[in-house]
């Protein structure tokens, strides 16, 4: 009987273990601390722009994160609502404590899944790096397995830095993992040091909340998961404060004491998650920076300051915090810090996230150089399911850039690599109009069926929704609107003249038909408002209007990208000898050899490889195929 071991109980590990178990594979999740499964290292929130998209996508495929945040979220908000249906993304703050418990509960009750506490020391193969057979732990025991997913997060040779002090740790209060890191390096895998950081946590009672700006969550809160019945937790608002000139002055005068700026840190930091030192140094004209004041849990009095990531010595952090209005007597419970860790060059991965040079090993999460829980979770899901499929002799599931943000992320990592911690942004997706997260379940339905991780009830739910949408859309296309029809008065009310008749679809395409007018029209259609699991009339109306009004732009977007997509389907044979290609410059040859693209599409996305070079590659592949 085949089995999988997942090393690491963070967000990537949870998804990998969860999906493998759901697919019926015997799975063991190994973690250095069972109590820390699902721990959120910094911001106690899930989702956001681009990230929220990935959470809904992995939910559509049977992942855990969406369900977990729905069960434990205490503040939900759709971000970027005004920016458009395709780019708006859900975000929620979690009760961190409950999230951990919910994650552990989910795993403990999953069939086919076992949990184990311990530290992985080495991977074992039967010969060289072929024939993976198990994971050796520090305590001497061996977990037998046929495939392993390494989701070690920031724990590989992790080192925390605060001011001038440094300590080996994977996270504050938790030891680092060194043996495994060293073994992986000794196999010749390329690695580099990355860094990330976190903000101080404060005692709630020491903050004057009356002086802070309040930001309420959405009411009612909208779940992430397509399968959540609702949001059980009581909801709380979050608060906002801004840095002051004094804050800036304190940071500037103490820059040499910061681990980052004092020259104590090696790694490269995340550009889209800058420390407060970064912010003041790089954007001196900005004046005030926004800080979100978030409760970590309803069970504790701990407050997280989002946007104040720092590696200043604790006494400087205290002064910084106390310079914020309302925080004059704030107390720090845990100081912020920077952490450096080993991560491995994702160019060494295949598109299914398997490590190319060794057999039976998958890498997912921060180990690949990403930052963020959602990025990690997405990779964990894909690595886990592909490890299972590999063991079963099935083709891997590779999501296209036009199918999901998950596809964009993996392709970016595996094809282009990353110089700094990779964070998802909608700007990275060129098929953006077609990747709205609210329809991720419909869009990925076929893939979900293929993977087989959703229950038949869940699949039926999505199928029913899709079918109902199509039915109603057909009705819309067929319903004829004239002055005397029931729709007539609604149109006039919206300021439209109906000289000739037109289809309801066309009427709804007009900008003057707002959500209210659309609701009234749709209510006249048979079967629109019938209650059904997963069917929310207001949301469906939004999606229908989006579909009607955006179709031409979406089609155009897709058409402009067609040429590229065709290239994605041209495989570069694994044994293709690049060196025998005439006419490629040495530079391009080097890049192709380093990045090892599997398709022409991938090759075209490698920086520095011109369309001309790809065309040449294509010609050669054609030619060698004919022989």
């Amino acid at each position, binding site marked *: 009987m085949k089995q999988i071991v997942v090393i690491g109980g963070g967000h990537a590990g949870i998804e990998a273990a969860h999906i493998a178990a759901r697919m019926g594979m015997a799975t063991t999740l190994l973690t250095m601390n069972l109590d820390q499964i699902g721990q959120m290292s910094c911001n106690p929130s899930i989702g956001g722009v681009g990230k929220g998209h990935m959470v809904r996508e992995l939910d559509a495929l049977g992942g855990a994160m969406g369900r977990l945040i729905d069960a434990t979220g205490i503040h939900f908000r759709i971000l*970027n609502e005004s*920016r458009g*249906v395709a780019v708006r993304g859900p975000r929620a703050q979690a009760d961190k404590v409950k999230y951990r418990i919910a994650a552990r509960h989910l795993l403990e009750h999953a069939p086919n899944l076992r949990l184990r506490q311990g530290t992985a020391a080495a991977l074992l193969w039967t010969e060289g790096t072929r024939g993976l057979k198990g994971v050796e732990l520090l305590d001497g025991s061996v977990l037998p397995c046929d495939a392993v997913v390494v989701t070690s997060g920031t724990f590989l040779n992790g080192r925390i830095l605060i001011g001038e002090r440094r300590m080996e740790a994977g996270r504050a209060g938790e030891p680092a993992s060194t043996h495994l890191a060293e073994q992986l390096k000794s196999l010749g895998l390329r690695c580099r040091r990355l860094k990330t950081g976190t903000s101080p946590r404060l005692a709630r009672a020491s903050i004057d909340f009356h002086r802070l700006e309040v930001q309420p969550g959405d009411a009612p809160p909208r779940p992430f998961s397509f399968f959540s019945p609702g949001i059980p937790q009581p909801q709380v608002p979050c608060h906002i404060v801004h840095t002051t000139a004094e804050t800036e002055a304190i940071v500037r005068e103490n820059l040499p004491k910061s681990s980052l700026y004092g020259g104590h840190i090696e790694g490269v930091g995340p550009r889209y*998650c*800058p420390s407060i030192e970064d912010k003041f140094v790089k954007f001196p004209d900005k004046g005030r920076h926004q800080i979100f004041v978030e409760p970590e849990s309803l069970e504790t009095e701990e407050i997280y300051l989002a946007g104040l990531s720092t590696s200043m010595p604790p006494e400087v952090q205290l002064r910084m915090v106390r310079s914020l209005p309302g925080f004059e007597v704030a107390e720090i419970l845990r100081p912020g810090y920077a952490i450096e860790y080993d991560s491995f060059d994702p160019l060494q991965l295949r598109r299914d996230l398997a490590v190319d040079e060794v057999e039976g090993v998958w890498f997912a999460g921060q180990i690949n150089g990403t930052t963020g829980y959602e990025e990690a979770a997405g990779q964990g899901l894909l690595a886990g399911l592909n490890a299972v499929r590999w063991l079963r002799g099935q083709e891997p599931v590779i999501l296209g850039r036009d199918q999901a943000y998950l596809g964009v992320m993996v392709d970016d990592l595996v094809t282009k690599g990353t110089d700094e911690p990779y964070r998802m942004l909608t700007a990275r997706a060129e098929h953006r109009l077609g990747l709205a997260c609210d329809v991720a379940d419909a869009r990925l339905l076929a893939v979900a069926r293929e993977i087989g991780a959703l229950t038949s009830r869940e699949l039926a739910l999505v199928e029913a929704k899709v079918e109902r949408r199509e039915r109603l859309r057909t009705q819309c296309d067929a319903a004829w609107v004239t002055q005397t029809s029931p729709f007539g008065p609604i149109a006039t009310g919206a300021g439209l003249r109906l000289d000739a008749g037109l289809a309801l679809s066309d009427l709804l395409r007009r900008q003057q038909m707002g959500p209210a007018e659309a609701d009234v029209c749709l209510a006249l259609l048979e079967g629109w408002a019938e209650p059904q699991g997963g069917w929310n009339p207001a949301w469906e109306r939004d999606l229908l209007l989006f579909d009607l009004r955006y179709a031409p732009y979406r089609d155009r*977007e897709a058409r402009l990208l067609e040429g590229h997509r065709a290239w994605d389907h041209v495989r570069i044979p694994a044994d293709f000898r690049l060196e025998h290609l005439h*006419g*490629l410059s040495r530079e391009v040859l080097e890049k192709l050899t380093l990045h090892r693209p599997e398709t022409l599409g991938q090759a075209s996305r490698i920086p520095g490889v011109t*369309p001309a070079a790809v065309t040449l590659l294509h010609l050669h592949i054609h030619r060698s195929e004919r022989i």
Partner: protein
Amino acid sequence: MRVSGTGLAARLAPLLSLPEPRRASLRTLRWEGFREQALVLFFPAPASYTGEDLVEFQVHGNPLLVRRLVERLGSLGVRLAEPGEFTRRALLNGKQGLLEAEALRDLVGAETDTQIRLAQARAGGLPSWLLESRQALAPWVARAEAAVDYGEEEGILLDLLVLNGDLAPLRSRFHVEQSRSRAARHLQDGLRLALVGRPNAGKSTLFNALAGEDRAIVTEIPGTTRDVLEVRCEWRGLPLRLYDTAGLRDTEDPVERLGVARVHPVLEGADLVLHLWPAPDPAPDPVLQAALAPFAGKVLEVRTFGDLAGAPGVAIAAHQGDLDALEVALRDRILGGLAPDACLGALATARQVALLDDLARQLDLLAGLAPGCPPELPASLLQGAWGLLARLTGEDRAERTLDELFSGFCLGK
């Protein structure tokens, strides 16, 4: 003869020893009983046309000798180049930009002076307006992306009115370039004119006036028997492809005369069908008019042999050399009113014109967006335009976009 490749000194050693770079030197090439004196030029990589080693042989002009030399080179592992292969290598080795390579290809294929001048005008690399387009678009692409991803938090707005106002000159420029490119494409291909008319309508006279005695290239059009001949020539700076429908010339039988069906493909492919009718007649032949009805949109009725004073429509007197009206008509109807010189430097290949059309359409769509629409729409259109621009210039997809994007904005937490 020109040879390009890596390590040519070693490869060609059995045949000759290469001279000093860039010094034309006499060498005796010996092989299998042959002896040939050649002037040899050597350009070592990377400072050559292709970026690889390049060797040129100037040999005596005997075709058989040349063939034998080619065979000898073949035995040394040198094969005949495919059409355009030298330029392709230059392209891949970064010695040529994509637009320049296309211009060069068109230069090699040029058949008339105007076509040569047009191709040469494009050989200088990226036209400045393309570079300016990139500069004009970049900040808006950046702003749109920032507005979409970070807008709400950081208060970054995308004002559609300002955007469209700012890009209006660019949009106009694209439209102008579209006209120029379409005209340039016609000039590149040659303006296809089908000459149709009853016998003695003046076709031969006009034909001779346009084609002249020299510089005319005559070919039979396959599939139309001997009914149609294509003559390529240049007249008043306009490259022309004249199609003389000879089948309509020779017979007396009215049905035969109107053998339009036989010449149908030519009429389909023509840019303009010149229906010639001679001055003494009060009007063009109605039977012929009816036969040409399917092509009504591109039929130009030309009165020939006319006394030009007060003549309606387009009238010429080819026998007297009065062809101005025709020249004006051709420019107006096919070139959108532009003179050939006005098209110098315009993008002209099918690929370029298609991309330019898409690019202009992107900006048109942007201009057509309703003011209240969500930023993701303009962002998508801008991103599309950016990608098209990159494809037009042949550069890879704008990888640096994210860097440019966010260098101006303080983002993230």
